[in-house]
């Protein structure tokens, strides 16, 4: 893995422009990111509201860390040229979208997978120790948002039937009149950053890492969604089980009762799918108990 990365950075150092080098070095990672299960489904319009909401949660964590790091280092010579808070900052728009979907108390409802935490941690680490690498992350996220991200915005709007841009503020860049021209400007700014040989190599490696971190987040989000699917089924049954265990503790009064309780328990473990079946069984059990009571006493 390490050697692979080193090889990638050796390629195309003939063009000394950072914008060219970073593009070359992350070419493969870019393809892999596009071909994650989540992104492929997304491009086909197979994005559910749950998935989009989870994605927004992760984007919030990521941009919070990234933009905090950028703000703290805005005067650093490797950050100042590419510092465009008015045009690019995403945090506020993500917050607005999260509020739209989760309500006023969205902060308590944020759920993120491990990969997101790792990504955010890395960003905070770089913000502290290696601010010259921030451009690698800014490039990966912001230029992506301005390119393919625009298409994803339209797909999201269409798939989820969102009207009037509600919940889609993340994809909108009101401060950028032309994404294409802005990218050109951004590249010229990147190319004005002066880096030593070692710093440059480290920055290019960080760019590859940035893509990897994003890919991990996509994969984790994909897993989260499938788990949520299965969990919803499990939760359905475990709550039922919990209820019946609760009822059985009450019935310690008589043998008859104990028998009833045990039979209730047995019944629940057998039946966890059909509610009608359960209801009928419940009535039968009640009648059986009553009958027993009458017969016994």
């Amino acid at each position: 893995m390490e050697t692979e990365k080193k090889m990638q950075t050796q390629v195309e150092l003939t063009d000394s422009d950072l914008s060219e080098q970073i593009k070359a070095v992350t070419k493969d990672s870019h393809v892999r990111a596009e071909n994650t299960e989540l992104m492929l489904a997304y491009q086909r319009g197979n994005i559910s509201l749950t998935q989009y909401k989870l994605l927004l949660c992760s984007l919030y964590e990521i941009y919070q860390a990234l933009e905090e790091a950028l703000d703290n280092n805005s005067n650093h010579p490797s950050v100042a040229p590419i510092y465009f808070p008015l045009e690019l900052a995403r945090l506020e728009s993500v917050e607005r979208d999260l509020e739209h979907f989760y309500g006023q108390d969205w902060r308590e409802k944020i759920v993120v997978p491990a990969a997101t935490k790792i990504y955010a941690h890395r960003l905070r680490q770089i913000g502290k120790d290696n601010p010259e690498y921030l451009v690698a992350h800014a490039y990966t996220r912001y230029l992506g948002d301005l390119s393919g991200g625009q298409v994803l915005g339209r797909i999201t709007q269409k798939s989820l039937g969102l009207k009037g841009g509600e919940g889609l503020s993340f994809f909108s860049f009101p401060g950028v009149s032309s994404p294409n021209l802005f990218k050109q400007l951004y590249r010229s700014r990147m190319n004005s950053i002066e880096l030593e040989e070692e710093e440059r190599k480290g920055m290019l490696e960080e760019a590859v890492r940035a893509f990897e971190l994003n890919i991990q987040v996509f994969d984790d989000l994909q897993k989260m969604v499938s788990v949520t699917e299965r969990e919803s089924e499990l939760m359905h049954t475990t709550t039922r089980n919990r209820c019946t265990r609760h009822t059985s503790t009450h019935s310690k009064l008589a043998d008859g009762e104990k028998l009833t309780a045990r039979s209730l328990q047995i019944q629940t473990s057998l039946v966890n799918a059909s509610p009608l079946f359960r209801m009928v069984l419940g009535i039968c059990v009640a009648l059986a108990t009553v009958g027993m009571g009458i017969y016994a006493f």
Partner: protein
Amino acid sequence: MEDMEVERVAPEGPDVAPVEEEPLFTNLDIFLFSLIVGLLVYWFLSRKKSEETIPEFKRLTPVVTPQRETSFIEKMKKTNRNMVVFYGSQTGTAEEFCGRLAKDAQRYGMRGMSADPEEYDMSELPRLAEIDNSLAVFCMATYGEGDPTDNAQDFYDWMQENDEDLKGVNFAVFGLGNKTYEHFNAMGKYTDKRLEELGGKRIYDLGMGDDDGNLEEDFVSWKEQFWPAVCEHFGVEATGDDTSIRQYELVVPTDINMNKVYTGEMGRLKSFETQKPPFDAKNPYLATVAVNRQLNQAGDRHLMHLELDISGSKIRYDSGDHVAVYPVNDVSIVNRIGQILDADLDTVISLNNLDEESNKKHPFPCPTTYRTALTHYLDITNPPRTNVLFELAQYATDPKDQDTLRKMASASPEGKGLYQSWVLDAQRNILAVLEDMPSLHPTIDHLCELLPRLQARYYSIASSGKVYPTMVSICAVVVEFQTSTGRTFKGVATNWLKNKVVVTDNGHKATVPMYVRKSQFRLPFKASNPVVMIGPGTGIAPFMGFLQERGWMKEQGKDVGETILYFGCRRRNEDFLYQQELEEFEKAGVLTQLNVAFSRDQEGKVYVQHLLKKNKEHLWKLIHTDNAHIYICGDARNMARDVQNTFYDIAEEVGGLTHTQAVAYIKKLMTKGRYSLDVWS
């Protein structure tokens, strides 16, 4: 049990056998029974609760229709349609456009349906000829590197691989693309070309929507001309005798609250009275005019320099940004229109959309007066588009005039030629059309529905936000010329700006509703980076801002790189704009090289590109070795193209590149933000 025992009471009678009274339910039984019932109830209730805690999970499953009609021909025949609109769509835009066309169809005598080419057998296309007066329309989006969208892939393959005869198949194509991509509208172009090659009959030109510009506008413009062409081709009367296809309904309110009437605002009512930041397109700032002076000393044109005061607006700008202004129309033209249409311009009206589902409730802010609409909201100076003429035809009492108008709106070569000469070349605006065709008496409300919106005008800001944060400068040339009809064509914004007096009679300062639109036209980050600026005529505007900023950096002690300007004008003594300021910059060493081309001061024409060629060695060194940034501002049509060609020549002659390499080299500079354009046509 003992305590529960019922006391046996000996019956009174001798022969009555004691009946053991056995209760049906003992107390214990009742207790147990109620317990069970209680538990069951609890059980059911908690079951319901658990359902509520399960998170909502909606997964979009692809809609699978069990029995699909894969023949669009059969479907059309079954549902009695004669127009089918296919969409090659990835993000839904083309699909939406298709839906709108299909819906519009009935208003033009066609019965349309939209269709996904992936769901139908496209090889049936030749069969369209079986249906009378049929038409196939294609809304094709281009994806990625000139590729078809996923749902159009099969259709694309079919077009390439087959040689079917499409005789008798009428078609039209609208392409959705983005000019910033190399393969602009490749799919649209290919579909249009191929269908004709296969023998299909094109009944209207290919439309090319540009998402980098305004895709919606492109689509609407295209379909406004498309429908008349359709009507013409099928000999269908879209309007019929007296019926007209109105999109809006005129409502004259009886109970008028003047506070709720728009008087020229773009967005919020009273936004001109109570100004609240932030200021943008919907909420412009009323800047006062601090300076308005003429720049040229001689000649018949009027070049001007204005300074707008933006103090207190919290508006910030950078040199290279654009200022957008909302002009108003000439009062005399507005009055004339009211006269000729015999209308009371001060009537308060509202035009409401008949399509209740549309997001666009009114064509312009309503309620308002006709006067306000014609002055602030509608474009009355540009030549009217063909769809306007077509809709107005019904109001011409002279049948010859009706014919002429309809012909000009048609797709026939004769009609197109007539429109070109009578309307476009002669620069006839709507008033001229009304004046020169006296039998034409449209209703004023219908006219207001048809006229396009008056657009904001953009000017490159001619000052630096760092040096002059409370002031925005404009450098513009007034548009005014004589038309072949003997009328004077006056540019709306430039004449309006020209007449902005700094202090009016009653002491009020003239105001300009404006906002700043950020651009990406920027000086390099490092002051030491050399810059080459090419801006003939009013194209010099942003470079005044650049020079002010470079000067400011120099004053701050920064190491400022070479700053070279190429300017061009007609004559030194006529229109050498900002001559004094430029010579001062030169003296101060801010402008390291000033090159001016005076096109008419000598025998042959001398333009900026000629001067560039003279300095080719130095320029190549700056570009190739010193990381110079190149900026071009001004005329897009000729100047920008000529200058770009000159750079190719320099790369070839001095850099030793082949032409192909030179083209790629300049393109690379653009990608890296080192070759920037701020051009207009």
